[in-house]
């Protein structure tokens, strides 16, 4: 009597309803030769019947699956003698509940259950039986009622197509709202946690403070209890690394896109493009240890040989590797945009006696610019949000510096270090992670809005 069996039965009932609905429609029309008397094609009457049979029961099943456990647990606990539950802490109570459920489901437990737990489990099982029977009865009734409803409504003038289409639209809206609501939920939860953080640390200190050392005492009597939450060093660190990354990725990506789109013979393009795309497929953790184990020591050695002092976790190494990671974004987005410039524009320019490079610089590039700017800004937000490389290759010390040879830390690195390890989730230290996350989100959002704006502005001008 599992829910999956029930689901299967409902689907079968829908298939049957489709056929019945179709037959019925043909019947009321007066035979297959008369179907042009119907408002819609017979299949739509079938869909209509299937939807009426299936949708209500499916919705019921969904709610039931979500709520059954909670309701049954509440009922079982209410049955327990008062003295058992009255002075239990939250943790002990949930332990008790899981004991009861495990026993009821027939799972083995390490220790011998007490008599009370056994009784409760038996009660739980009984309730479960009743609930399942009720569910089956309800679903059966709904299926029959739905079929009856659809049967009755199948008349030649009934607008089955319009109905089915509006139901389909509602279903689509439901699904798209799942994505939107999830996003909204995440943003709101980050927002609320951030508000809690700003109750403990003023936002002016967070946004404009230049000292970051999120030390919070685990016990109240510990010395040095107060930390500093000035996020400026983190933002400058993030910006520095992203800037270095873009300094590498934009020229390399753009020029390789121009080469691939305009100059490369077909054979070269055939293998060069996939190779670039493999770069995009390398997991960032691989880039991370490449940065930490290869590039950073190399940079250090290089610095030593020319008499420069380069930290072993320098911003330069992290930024360069991040830049390599971003090259395929810039190049493949730009190449698509350049390829999308119509051949007729190139022809127009060549026919005036322009050379290929003049054509690229003066016609193709301006025409492709909005798309290229959009691609670059997308790459920037990718760089700002990138975590793995900087966790492995950038430092932890929050230095406020613009020197790429020094070690800096980034917003994402700090979020990771704040939340790893045993933490209480209401200290300023852990809540700071939410504030950082919120700021990161806002910055990326603003970047994306600017990117869209630029793209649209150029569109208006040029199309």
């Amino acid at each position, binding site marked *: 009597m599992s829910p999956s069996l029930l689901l299967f039965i409902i689907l079968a009932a829908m298939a049957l309803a489709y056929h019945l609905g179709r037959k019925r429609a043909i019947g009321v029309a007066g035979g297959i030769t008369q179907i042009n008397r119907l408002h819609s094609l017979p299949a739509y009457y079938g869909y209509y019947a299937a939807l009426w049979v299936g949708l209500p029961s499916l919705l019921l099943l969904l709610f039931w699956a979500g709520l059954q456990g909670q309701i049954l647990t509440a009922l079982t606990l209410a049955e327990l003698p008062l003295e058992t539950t009255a002075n239990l802490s939250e943790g002990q109570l949930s332990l008790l509940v899981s004991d009861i459920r495990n026993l009821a489901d027939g799972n083995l437990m390490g220790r011998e259950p007490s008599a009370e737990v056994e009784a409760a489990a038996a009660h739980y099982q009984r309730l479960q039986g009743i609930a399942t029977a009720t569910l089956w009865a309800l679903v059966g009734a709904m299926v029959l009622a739905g079929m009856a409803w659809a049967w009755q409504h199948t008349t030649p003038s009934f607008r089955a197509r319009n109905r089915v289409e509006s139901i389909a639209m509602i279903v689509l809206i439901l699904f798209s709202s799942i994505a939107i609501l999830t996003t909204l939920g995440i943003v709101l939860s980050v927002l609320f946690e951030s508000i809690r953080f700003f109750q403990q640390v003023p936002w002016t200190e967070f946004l404009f403070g230049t000292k970051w050392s999120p030390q919070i005492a685990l016990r109240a009597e510990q010395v040095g209890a107060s930390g500093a939450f000035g996020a400026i060093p983190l933002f400058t660190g993030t910006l520095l690394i992203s800037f270095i990354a873009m300094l590498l990725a934009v020229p390399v990506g753009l020029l390789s896109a121009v080469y691939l789109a305009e100059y490369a013979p077909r054979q070269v393009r055939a293998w060069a493009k996939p190779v670039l795309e493999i770069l995009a497929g390398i997991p960032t953790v691989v880039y991370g240890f490449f940065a930490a184990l290869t590039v950073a020591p190399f940079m250090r050695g290089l610095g030593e040989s020319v008499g420069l002092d380069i930290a072993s976790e320098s911003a330069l190494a992290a930024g360069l590797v991040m830049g390599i990671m971003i090259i395929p974004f810039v190049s493949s987005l730009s190449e698509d945009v350049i390829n999308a410039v119509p051949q007729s524009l190139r022809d*127009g320019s060549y026919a005036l*006696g322009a050379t290929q490079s003049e054509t690229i610089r003066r016609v193709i590039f301006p025409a492709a610019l909005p798309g290229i700017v959009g691609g670059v800004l997308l790459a920037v937000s990718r760089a700002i949000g990138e975590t793995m490389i900087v966790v492995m290759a950038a430092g932890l010390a929050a230095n406020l510096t613009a020197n790429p040879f020094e070690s800096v830390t980034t917003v994402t690195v700090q979020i990771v270090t704040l939340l790893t390890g045993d933490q209480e989730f209401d200290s300023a230290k852990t809540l700071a992670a939410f504030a950082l996350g919120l700021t990161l989100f806002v910055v990326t959002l603003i970047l994306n809005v600017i990117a869209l704006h630029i793209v649209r502005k150029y569109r208006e001008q*040029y199309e």
Partner: protein
Amino acid sequence: MNMTAEAIAVKPINLTADHLAQDQSTTITVGEISSPNPRMECRDVNVWYNANQAIKNVSLDIGQNEVIAMIGPSGCGKSTFLRCLNRMNDTIPAARVEGSIQLDGQEIQDKSIDVVPLRARVGMVFQKPNPFPKSIYENIAYGPRIHGLTNSRAELDELVETSLQRAGLWKEVKDRLDAPGTGLSGGQQQRLCIARTLSVSPEVILMDEPCSALDPIATAIIEELIDELRQQYTIAIVTHSMQQAARVSQRTAYFHLGDLVEVGTTDDIFNQPKHKLTEDYITGRFG
């Protein structure tokens, strides 16, 4: 321009319609392909798009101070032939051109020839208007700028104005030279592209249906322009309008499925076509 006795004598490929073979690859052009004062001489030109032959053994001269009209049913290869004359087919990877094409006695098919100055000398107006995504002013100024034709902004302004005036567009756009060229109407774009080609003063101008989107007034302006340009330049024009061919051209070439079927003075082609296909086409029984 006119058929002369010697020309026929030295060009043995000019045969009469009776000699036409059914096999298209051996179709022989009727009429006088040569011109007494040729700028461009094409001999046995063949064009393939991959395995598809679009132009078959076409030989044709285009003479100085002459307007030659190319007519024929859609898809017969008029645009393809025109694009051979300034090597625009180079930009189509699938296209392969064979045969000899000479400009002032110099072979342009030669791979060692630099196409950039060639295209500056042989300008082209495309079948579909293709204004750059720039302002109207910049569309016209583009060519003069890359060739360094003007020395000052004032000179450039003047060149832009005269080019637009000759194409009959100046009055409509003089107050919005900074507006995007792509925002113009189809017919205005067509004239913008004509003005753009004029701005670099090519010696030979190839026009692929330059009036297809124009009203009768704008068409008359362009036809007047063509007549005026003829005094200095050499012009090849593709058109679907017989009246236009009759009005502006001195010679007419009739293409059919990749073959140059007949060529001759415009008067002869329209009044006494020699080939059956030409006659069918101009009398409206075909195409």
